[in-house]
């Protein structure tokens, strides 16, 4: 494993340096049919789950086959995508905003061979490499974050729960029977790297134990004022502690004021929160971002805690499946999850899903909490 230089000279970092060139220009990556018809599309149709047809004013057509998959991807896998794109799509491919891959062809006849090829490919473990689906009134890929694969603050894994959930929701990835789009998202901690806060169903990693204090290290590692300032509930104050015979500058945490947001740990590595029993999942539901019919909405907490059941998070996937079925059975056509819950009333939502309503679900965070209580005599028994 000898070091191979790229040509970069660490002695003269500025020599020949190229900076601020930005990304590649998008145009060079457009398939010809896209380039030719850009801005002049007339209409589209979803031919079947995972297959779109767009028709241009010129009469040109582009057929898109969308495939799902883990966004965590090896170069081997990307090369396989390239191979398929070369074979069927003149060497072009794209990714969607939800981490699906789209293969485009310019004639209907090319669709079936493409699909057949895609669906025939499986990983050694037996799972599909390129399942076709994820369009229309169904469930598409779960957008998610890093989890235990890379991040230092997660309260749950990302890729694992996503795999487990998509296995359970697979039929709805491959079909379009639901009343509307149903977007599932996951964020492994409260930082919520994604639009988890406004997803139809959101899986959120959450800590439930206040930070531990690694006093010895804190003194060395941390800008104590930063850690103190980081806490949104003012639970942290500077203090002095004695460890052995050393007097250390450190902090104290008023535990009952802690809401486990982990912001202190972001600022200070000597305040870890992670805990096997403490950590787990919050389920949120009813958010959306589109402006269709109703305004964008935040997701609401509907289950305060589910444990991290490795490797398949059964309670979480059961809960989601159950919500999806209740929604499928109860919602009107075009009605998003949150619109449905609001129409029937959240009290009825807990009824039909059988989810338990606990005190944790009542907002108690600052002034706006008030607006979530019920200021009317209208309610359903």
């Amino acid at each position, binding site marked *: 494993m000898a070091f191979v230089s790229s040509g970069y000279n*660490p002695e003269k970092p500025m020599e020949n340096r190229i900076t601020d060139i930005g990304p590649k220009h998008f145009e060079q990556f457009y398939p010809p049919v896209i380039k030719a018809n850009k801005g002049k599309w007339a209409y589209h149709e979803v031919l079947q789950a995972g297959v779109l047809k767009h028709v241009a004013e010129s009469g040109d057509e582009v057929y898109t086959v969308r495939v799902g998959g883990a966004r965590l991807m090896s170069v081997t896998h990307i090369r396989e995508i390239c191979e398929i794109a070369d074979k069927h799509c003149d060497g072009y*491919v794209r990714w969607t905003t939800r981490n699906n891959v789209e293969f485009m062809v310019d004639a209907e006849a090319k669709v079936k061979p493409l699909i057949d090829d895609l669906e025939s490919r499986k990983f050694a473990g037996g799972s599909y490499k390129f399942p076709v689906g994820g369009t229309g009134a169904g469930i598409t890929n779960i957008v998610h974050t890093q989890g235990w*694969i890379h991040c230092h603050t997660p309260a749950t894994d990302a890729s694992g729960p996503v795999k487990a959930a998509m296995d359970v929701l697979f039929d709805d990835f491959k079909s379009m029977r639901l009343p509307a789009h149903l977007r599932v998202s996951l964020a492994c901690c409260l930082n919520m790297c994604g639009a988890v806060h*406004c997803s139809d169903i959101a899986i959120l990693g959450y800590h439930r134990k206040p930070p531990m204090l690694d006093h010895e290290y804190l003194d060395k590692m941390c800008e104590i004022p930063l850690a103190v300032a980081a806490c949104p509930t003012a639970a942290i104050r500077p203090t002095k502690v004695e460890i052995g015979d050393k007097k250390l500058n450190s902090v104290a945490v008023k535990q009952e004021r802690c809401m486990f*947001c982990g912001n202190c740990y972001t600022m200070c590595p000597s305040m870890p929160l992670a805990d096997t029993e403490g950590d787990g999942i919050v389920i949120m539901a009813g958010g959306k971002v589109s402006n269709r019919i109703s305004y964008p909405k935040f997701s609401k907490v509907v289950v305060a805690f589910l444990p991290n059941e490795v490797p398949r998070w059964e309670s979480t996937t059961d809960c989601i499946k159950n919500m999806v079925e209740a929604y499928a059975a109860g919602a009107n056509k075009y009605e998003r999850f949150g619109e449905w819950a609001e129409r029937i009333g959240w009290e009825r939502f807990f009824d039909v899903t059988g989810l338990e309503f606990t005190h944790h679900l009542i907002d108690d965070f600052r002034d706006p909490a008030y607006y979530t209580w019920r200021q009317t005599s209208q309610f359903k028994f």
Partner: protein
Amino acid sequence: MAKHETPLLDQLESGPWPSFVSDIKQEAENRAKNANNVEFQVKQDVCEDILGVLELSYKHGRTHWKHGGIVGVFGYGGGVIGRYCDQPEMFPGVAHFHTIRVNQPAGKFYNTEWLRNLCDLWEFRGSGITNMHGSTGDIVFLGTVTEQLEEIFFELTHKHGQDLGGSGSNLRTPSDCIGEARCEYACYDTQALCHFLTNEYQDELHRPAFPYKFKFKFDGCPNCCVASIARSDMSFIGTWRDDIRIDQDAVAAYVGGEYPPNAGAHKDGNWGAFDIQKEVIDLCPTGCMKYEGGKLEINDKECTRCMHCINVMPRALKKGLDTGVSILVGAKAPILDGAQMGSLLVPFVKVEEPYEEITEVIEAIWDWWMEEGKNRERLGELIKRQGFQAMLDAVGIDPVPQHVKEPRSNPYIFWKEDEVPGGWQRDVNEFRKYHQR
């Protein structure tokens, strides 16, 4: 023969959905084989160690990654996230495991040649594992060592004409929906605007000068396929200000069942025949539509361009021709004071090169935020703290009712002294002449 036993992860290989575990395993195998004799610049068994440390996390129910520390490339304040394993002896392959954010092309179209180049680079100088893509939009190279950072950057810029994305208190990598490239709903060229602003603000993207992170996202229409309204400090949403164009024959074709409603997006449900009254007219949020005597009418003055009717009948209804964007500001995730959606700042502006009307707004907002924002205060939080009016004032935009969903219900109006005749400085003795104590 796997380096580490992964009984828990192995259970994630079954089931229909593509297994990331299987994929990492295939990469591990390929690296072990090394058919192309690559001179790996990070450990050949790095993927084994990824699986190993992840299995350990599954066992403990806790992450085994530590804080980043400051790593990066010379002259840039972002683009690299440092990462270290907290069990480096057990998993030396991932002892350092930094990520590199590679600024994706607008629209996320690729050709295979370029993709393969990236793969080659990353196999050679990194773990061979990526995120396609990160939540902000970057291509994320997942896991390399400190010494490789400059090398990778050098190759990216010199060989592939490609720059890094954002991280830190910078402009973050902008991203967009597919827009005009393949969508009939697009009201402006999202790729063009995204690319233009990304390049226009390379300095802001690479050199941290902001109070905190700042994100742009570009949605071609109110369907918001890149979720800009939920996750960008400044969100550009396509819209129009003239009338929806109606093709009455196509309406009839929908009513007659010739065309599938909502472009077939509900094909697998049992929804019965299309009912234009129930499915369109009654669901229009403003009630501005009418279908009488086989004719569809829209009172466009009252339409709020929610897209519903167009989504249901794309062949019959088309967005207007006088298109542009609405600019919303302040969206963010819940840390620290709760999540925010974007709030409407500029109801309508044309999207026309050289985009000056847009850059003016951006720069006015940045000036205000850089002047007033505290350390780690997102734009949305500043707006909340100082008030929406304060922003309008600073940015020089007149208040219009479009800015609010509803006027304030508390009457706590902070009048300014110059708005009140006579000013505020009064003489209590003068007052006492008329009002004894």
